[in-house]
């Protein structure tokens, strides 16, 4: 699989995958998409890279620490629920910045933060699994 064209292709593909995943992530609240799907797409990019260059190299090249991603994603998901408590609401109550309207995404709010947590975790999980299997 170590063909030059593929290598070059993957180099280009990674940022593309990454951008596409972000797009999916942020449009998720209003159209099909969301953190989970986005996370899968992002990790697929890195997985392709890993298939070509090996897991070790992928890890070093992008400074990826899957367990760290998993932990961070979980933390973000939990914290997104804690913010409303500080504001005196129930856990996980959605807080929105109603005045701001961002293209694609719509209004920013804690549920979006939660979705980002999902995104990170899913990416971390898939990478962790693929790396573990690949290195064996």
């Amino acid at each position: 699989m170590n063909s030059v064209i593929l290598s070059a292709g993957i180099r280009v593909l990674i940022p593309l995958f990454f951008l596409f995943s972000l797009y999916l992530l942020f449009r998720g609240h209003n159209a099909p998409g969301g953190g989970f799907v986005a996370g899968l797409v992002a990790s697929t990019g890195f997985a392709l890279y890993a298939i070509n260059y090996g897991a070790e190299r992928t890890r070093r090249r992008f400074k990826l620490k899957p367990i760290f991603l998993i932990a961070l994603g979980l933390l973000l998901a939990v914290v997104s629920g804690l913010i409303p408590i500080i504001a005196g609401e129930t856990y996980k109550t959605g807080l929105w910045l109603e005045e701001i309207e961002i293209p694609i995404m719509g209004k920013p709010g804690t549920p979006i933060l939660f979705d980002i947590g999902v995104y990170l975790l899913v990416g971390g999980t898939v990478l962790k699994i693929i790396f573990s299997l690949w290195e064996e």
Partner: protein
Amino acid sequence: MVLALYPAAAFAWLMTQFGSVSGGEVISSSWDWVPTMGISLSFHLDGLSMLFALLITGIGALVLTYAGTYMKGMPKTDRFFMSLVLFMASMLGLVLSDNIISLFIFWELTSFSSYFLIGYHHEDKESRKSALEALLITAGGGLALLAGLILLGIGGGSMEMSQLVQRGDELAESGLFTAAMLLIIIGCFTKSAQFPFHFWLPSAMAAPTPVSAYLHSATMVKAGVYLLARVSPVFNGADGWHALLLIFGGITMVLGALIAVMQTDLKKILAYTTVSALGLLVMLLGIGTGIAIKAAVIFILAHALYKGCLFLIAGIVDHETGSRNIRKLGRLFKQMPVTGTAAVVACLSMAGIPPLFGFISKEYSYESTIGMVVNSPLTTSAFFITGMLFVAAAGMLSYMVFFGRRNKLDIKPHEAPITMLAGPAVLAVLSIVLGVFSGLINPLLDQASQVVFPENEPLNLKLWHGINTELILSMTTLVAGIAAFAFVYYNPRLMSMIEISDKIKPSYAYKQTMDSLAELAKNVTQRVQNGYLRVYISMMVGTFCVLALIVLKDFGIPNIEVLWSDFRVYDIVIGVLMIVACFYTVVAKSRLLAIAMLGVVGYGVAFVFIIFGAPDLAMTQILIETLTVVLFVLVLWKLPHYLIFDEGFIKFRYFLVSALFGAIMTWIVMLITSYPLDSHLKTWFAESSYPLGMGRNVVNVILVDFRSLDTLGEIVVLGIAAVGIYGLIKFTTEDDKEEAI
């Protein structure tokens, strides 16, 4: 030794109450323990309790003194004494409790502590076996007793014995009466070693002798008798009560005495005579007349005095000579005069010779058997035989050990130290004193008999009743007994030749039961837990099928109204394709094909989602499907050749189970969807998603907002799965190799 002070103090305190209790007072104190369950720690000191409490503390003090010397130099004596004191306390609790459940608690505690006492020589296999036997039988009976007592409590509407005895009539009317009675009788029979549960008692002789003297003569084994006496105001007169106690008591009495005279081991002789004595007590309770109750109360005391004494003596003999075999022992009186004297006195009491206390007891027993309305001759002759054999046994215990033939011992015996002699001496002296001055104990025994038989006439103990039938019978018994002893003494061979076939012994039945239980356990376990995963799965699926079919049989098979106009060609194509793919995963000859077919099924599912308006689902399904296939390929390409196992008939059976399962699920889906569904959630989500959830994709809004807790759980699952997969693949016990994260 110091420990002996505790029971001695308790004994002293009891003696201070002696006067008032004998006068008919009842001392009680109560503390609510678990009122929710109707359990209190209430204590009640009346005549019957007093009698037992005095025995427990008095003999307890003597035994502890004795054991201090006896156990010297043996291992783990601290644990031994701990158990012994625990036993003493629980026994005391048992006879003082008024609440039937706290009584039961102490009852079980005596079983528990005696388990450790019997198993004292636990490194010896026989000892462990005996301890276990005693535990299982008494605890097994305990379970019956528990049920019986609860039934009694339910029927009588109270858990207090003092209340229950007054509600005898009310109880008799409740439907639980007979069951309660039977269960309580079973419990008492196991504890008091009645036929056919008697065999644990002789085996329990594996315990150190002080334990036997204490538990197996004076206290624990009498607990059953005590309880029967306690509840007899409730059950006296009920159908079956008399018959059961009479028959089993009688059998136990005669059998015990018969086996006793065939033994050669001192402790075994004592054990079997104890069994016999317990049988006598149960029988007397079974007779249940006023005089019989009196006889029972008297005999409890008489027996405790002489049997405790004899056990202690057996211990001394064993301790000083190293043997308990009456064939080897003989003419010890010269070396052990004090022990010998005590033994003779105790044996005379056992044989029922005046002026000892045992004589009074025997007189009363005869009086009660003669006074029976029915079956008097049979009972009287049973008692006659027993009495005769008791005389013989007494002879074996005293004459053969301390006089008779020259001993065949290797060591030269000598008298025991004073601490060990104190016990038997005191008990022997009491046997004489109470016999001659029976007035001393008369008020207490009178009270005790009143407790058991409330309308009993006052007791008036006398040594001399004049020449009457009882006396004649007593004397005849004595003569016959001496003759029997002579027979045993001069025909040792003959006695040892009498062998009872193992197979008719209850102990054999016990062994068989336990063995077959173990066998059953093994068979059942191997059957349900045979190690084959597919059997487990089919058990699960099969259970579901059976249960679901039972429920479904009430529903018809729903009508299928196929509206062909609604059909689109690709629906059918997708459906058929999925089923075919599913079929191919089953029959595929190569792993890769199976996985590819799995992929087809997965994409088909995604397509169904698209058709029914679930784009998010479809997207996720497709991605996941791809990932799963990739994972499969990554994982499986290293596995060896795909094996197809031919299972023939079994395969067919599994096919049937699967087909049935599939059919049931189809049925259920059709059944449920045939009813209309009005989901208020659906409309609410449709209306609230954008205004409240700020999102146009309702599914996503539900996922990240309305039901974000589910999603949080979902990602935790993923995270853990990743950690787990990493652990599965990378697990290493090497410590130094630092893994990259």
